[in-house]
């Protein structure tokens, strides 16, 4: 049997465990509570009021004004996640971390235990209790013959539920449900399916295979199999590692903004963060995606495939900026994101159209060394300083004379403005103490949208 351990309201629960007086209270984990942003996590006490992760903070404050708003700390949650991983590895070496708060545990190779349903439930129950005793955290555990069923079962009873499902039971529970309940079916795919008259998981299971294949290709076949509770995906143990499919960062801006300089600076900052992560993990990417969300919450994502894979901020930024310029109509933006996909290992040979600029490469290596030694914000692209200052991440004033950041009124919206001096090359500065809200993205379910 396979277990999916899903930590209940993980970020909020870690805060409650670290600060016991918050236990039993509605708490909302977010970025800086005094700024605009979204809910990162809500405790179970806040959820009856309608507060959900991803909701704008202003709306959460309206729905649940008595909640405590706690600034999240990604490093704290990652550390706890690693401690939990160690606990899982004591039980079985076949553990696949699925996100910061979820992991698959394959019990099928455990000697004498874990093969039967009763035995798996017993193990799950012991594990759930141990997580509570050691860490003071709740976990819901799904049990199934494959990853798909384990994953979907984990959401049946929360918090602190244990739900074992066979394939037959899976169909009994999920066939009557909306097709979007199926793991991997997002809102857009659900829309397409419903347009074809497929509204429930059961109707997807019984839809003609030819039609699904014609309409959705290979994904159509997978979807139909999934609706039957079939899944052959192996649990890939932690020690074998799984290559990421993409890397990206996004940020909700301090206020709706249509200042091109500020938006460009933000894109530069995001490109720099993504490039640094790519190099740190030894990857390059061939597809650059930009995400824009305007003040009406309309989201546009646009991507461009490159002839040569990149891992430098300048190359990434050039494409990201071009995509942004082509798709931004001047409306105030709320959120910006940059991501890179079609990743390949940086040590793989790459046939390049143009020879590598050795000077740029040497400069990049030197800058990486400085950051490795002194911290991420010791050297940053100067063009990103307007963004950093607005987010309170620039604790020095050497770049601009005159002390406080310059602010300018543009088209009725006040936004910080970068000086020309800030828009080229790198600037130096000490590390910021504020946590970086753009590092705050737990991985969601794998997308299977066509």
């Amino acid at each position: 049997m396979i277990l999916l351990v899903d930590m209940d309201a993980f970020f909020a629960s870690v805060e409650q465990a670290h600060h016991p007086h918050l236990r039993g209270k509605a708490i909302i984990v977010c970025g800086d509570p005094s700024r605009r942003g979204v809910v990162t996590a809500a405790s179970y006490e806040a959820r009856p009021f309608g507060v959900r992760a991803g909701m704008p903070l202003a709306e959460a404050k309206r729905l649940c004004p008595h909640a405590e708003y706690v600034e999240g700390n990604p490093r704290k949650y990652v550390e706890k996640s690693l401690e939990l991983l160690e606990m899982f590895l004591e039980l079985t070496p076949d553990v696949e971390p699925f996100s910061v708060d979820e992991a698959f545990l394959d019990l099928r190779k455990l000697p004498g235990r874990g093969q039967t349903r009763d035995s798996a439930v017993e193990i799950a129950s012991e594990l759930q209790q141990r997580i509570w005793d050691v860490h003071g955290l709740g976990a819901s555990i799904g049990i199934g013959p494959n990853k798909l069923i384990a994953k979907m079962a984990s959401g049946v009873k929360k918090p602190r539920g244990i739900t074992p499902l066979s394939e037959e039971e899976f169909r009994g529970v999920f066939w009557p449900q909306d097709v979007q309940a199926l793991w991997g079916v997002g809102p857009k795919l659900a829309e397409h399916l419903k347009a074809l008259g497929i509204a429930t998981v059961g109707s997807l299971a019984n839809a003609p295979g030819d039609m699904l294949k014609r309409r959705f290709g290979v994904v159509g076949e997978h979807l139909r199999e999934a609706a039957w509770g079939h899944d052959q995906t192996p649990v890939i143990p932690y020690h074998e590692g799984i290559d990421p499919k993409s890397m990206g960062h996004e940020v909700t801006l301090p206020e709706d903004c249509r200042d091109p300089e500020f938006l460009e600076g933000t894109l530069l900052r995001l490109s720099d963060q993504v490039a640094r992560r790519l190099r740190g993990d030894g990857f390059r990417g061939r597809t650059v995606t930009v995400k824009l969300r305007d003040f009406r919450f309309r989201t546009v994502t646009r991507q461009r495939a490159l002839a040569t894979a990149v891992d430098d901020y300048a190359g990434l930024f050039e494409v990201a900026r071009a995509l942004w310029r082509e798709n931004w109509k001047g409306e105030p933006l709320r959120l910006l994101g940059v991501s890179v996909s079609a990743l390949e290992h940086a040590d793989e040979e790459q046939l390049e159209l143009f020879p590598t600029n050795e000077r740029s490469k040497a400069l990049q290596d030197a800058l990486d060394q400085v950051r490795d030694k002194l911290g991420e914000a010791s050297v940053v692209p100067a063009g990103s300083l307007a963004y950093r200052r607005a987010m309170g991440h620039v604790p020095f004033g050497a770049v601009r004379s005159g002390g406080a950041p310059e602010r300018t009124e543009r088209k009725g919206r006040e936004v910080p403005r970068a000086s020309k001096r800030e828009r080229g090359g790198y600037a130096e500065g000490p590390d910021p103490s504020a946590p970086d809200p753009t590092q705050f993205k737990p991985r969601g379910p794998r997308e299977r949208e066509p």
Partner: protein
Amino acid sequence: MFESLNDPVDVLTAFVDGSMRPIRFRWQGRIVRVRRITGQWARREGQAQLRYFAVQGSKDDSYELCFDARGPSWVLCRAWTGPG
């Protein structure tokens, strides 16, 4: 609510069997006795490692302290100042 402080503080610290723990610290003219360490985590800043402690004081007060071995120095990152 939590108040972000980042105030340098003097902390009486115990180093026992390769681990460290804050015992009490001076803040706003008073001594806060650490009754319980409720959480620990770390963050790298370049080559330096910062060690964080979530602690409970003598009453229902709650704090987060950070130890930076480069100083060595302690910083009180945030403190619970009562319901927001």
